[in-house]
């Protein structure tokens, strides 16, 4: 009897905890999206309306056509895609090389990649600024992609190294028997086998570039080269704070990660569990 009561109570506690979790992590998103589709006058109205009276897309229209949003979006997309492609190519090659070849000190090479996590971002940011300034890479896509790949590649290389270890070499050996070259077997057999890893790396690289604020702030001051993150922040700094633009801008910033999480969450979790933490 007591047992049963305890079980019932702990179940109730568990569900209360889960409801709390969903509210704490879910409600802020709801509030942001909802506030973004209220008329601007209602946004700053007090007391706030939890369920909006009128729904409008006027704020989004303003964001798209009265601000530089589309330029920032283009810049963010170019830099993100650049970082994803560069990071995947380099870390897939390196991951394969580290797994399949007998390279001296390879354990230390891999460990030194992880060591890169200890560098304070500004320890990179200050020298980047000075060096890029003298070789004209400030305000350029190349400069931003270099900075982003510097923080992406150590982790994605580590991840690909772990993922290739899960692809049996026997698959490749049978391809060699039929005359495939080493390079061909890597491209056609090993890489598809490590595809979940490549997807995890792509998500990681995209999240780094899409969310980066620090380097975008330091390495860019030309309004035409500004990334979304820095662009939206500008509206908080004037004498008037444009909450309508801030909230719609932030909402759109959230959409790509939202889609990634709900469609590809098994790859994200696979990336986490295989990265060596398990």
């Amino acid at each position, binding site marked *: 009897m007591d047992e049963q009561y305890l079980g019932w109570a702990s179940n109730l506690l568990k569900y209360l905890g889960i409801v709390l979790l969903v509210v704490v992590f879910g409600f802020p998103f709801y509030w942001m999206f909802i506030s973004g589709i209220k008329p601007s006058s209602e946004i700053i109205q007090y007391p*706030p309306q939890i369920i909006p009276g009128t729904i409008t897309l006027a704020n989004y229209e303003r964001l798209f056509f009265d601000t530089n949003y589309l330029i920032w979006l283009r810049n963010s997309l170019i830099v993100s895609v650049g970082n994803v492609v560069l990071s995947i190519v380099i870390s897939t090659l*390196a991951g394969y090389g580290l797994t399949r*070849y007998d390279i001296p000190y390879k354990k230390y090479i891999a460990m030194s990649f992880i060591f890169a996590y200890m560098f*304070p971002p500004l320890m990179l940011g*200050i020298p980047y600024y*000075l060096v890029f300034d003298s070789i004209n890479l400030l305000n350029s896509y190349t400069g931003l992609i270099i900075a982003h790949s*510097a923080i992406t590649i150590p982790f994605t290389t580590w991840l690909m190294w772990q993922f290739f270890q899960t692809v049996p070499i026997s698959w490749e050996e049978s391809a060699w028997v039929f005359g495939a070259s080493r390079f061909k077997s890597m491209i056609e057999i090993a890489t598809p086998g490590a595809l979940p890893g490549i997807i995890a790396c792509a998500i990681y690289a995209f999240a780094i570039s899409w969310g980066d604020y620090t380097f975008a702030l330091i390495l860019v001051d030309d309004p035409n080269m500004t990334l979304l993150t820095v662009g939206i922040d500008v509206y908080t700094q004037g004498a008037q704070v444009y909450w309508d633009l801030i909230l719609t801008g932030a909402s759109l910033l959230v959409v790509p*990660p939202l889609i990634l999480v709900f469609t590809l*969450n098994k790859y994200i979790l696979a990336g986490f569990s295989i990265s060596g933490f398990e």
Partner: protein
Amino acid sequence: MNLQARIQGRVNEFRRRPERLLGYFYIAPAVVVFFGVSLFPILVGIYISFHSGYGVFDLEYVGLSNYELLASNDTFWNSTRRGVLYALYSVFSQVVVGVGIALLINSSFKFSNVVRSIVLLPYLIPTVAIAMIFEWLFHNRIGLVNYLLQEGGMISEPINFFSVDLAFHSVVWIGNWKYTIFVVLIVLARLQSINPELYELAKINGANAVHRFFDVTFPNIKGVLFLVILLRSIWQFNKFDMIWLLTSGGPFNETLTMVIYAYQIAFQQFRGGVGASLTVIMFLMLLATGVVYFRQFKPHEEVET
């Protein structure tokens, strides 16, 4: 026989040689990138820290004077205390809350995938968006949180969450909303690899929930926790964007951590040399802590390589 073995050996060696060259070819781009865009800039940073001026080609050697300047500066020592406190406070709270959440969502229930996705989400959301959402929610005049607290009768006057008294806590906990997820994900992965029979066995032997946690769960997640604490401490100590977006170090330097101060020196006072010295000091502090930590807890033995 001996001759044959030697020939075979030569043949194998010959076969391996181009193989090994190909191996170098595969890892070369990553190594070049690592040296070119990580290690080289770090060395440039250390070099700059002994110079004054702004620009790579018009630096003037000043010896240790950038470091001496910092050592005699009260704001620097204050930022050191703030930075260390920020890292300790936020990592401690993230680990406690993160383990709690992981235990909660580890037990299976309906819609667990949806809940897991919602909980996973903040980690991939750009920090800028998170800072904006919470500035909006915690706004002292039109914020929803203040409204609900007043309606619920918990407070009579709206609270300014970014005041001198509260800003530091607000910055820590808004950051926790995002970064606790890292702890959850890694602890969760570990929890799911624990053999459920261990819990059954503990139950049969009369262990209650608290005992089961300390006898079964904790010994299993201990190793991974040491690693999580190390990584999160490094990242929290280095945290720039969240703090800068929320408070920029204010009010009255209440949230001025070392990174924020380094940014102000380098990019607002335009003293790159002094800013670089500050980041070098930060790196040395991390290195020293890392060495002690590795000696003490050996978290690298938890990483399968």
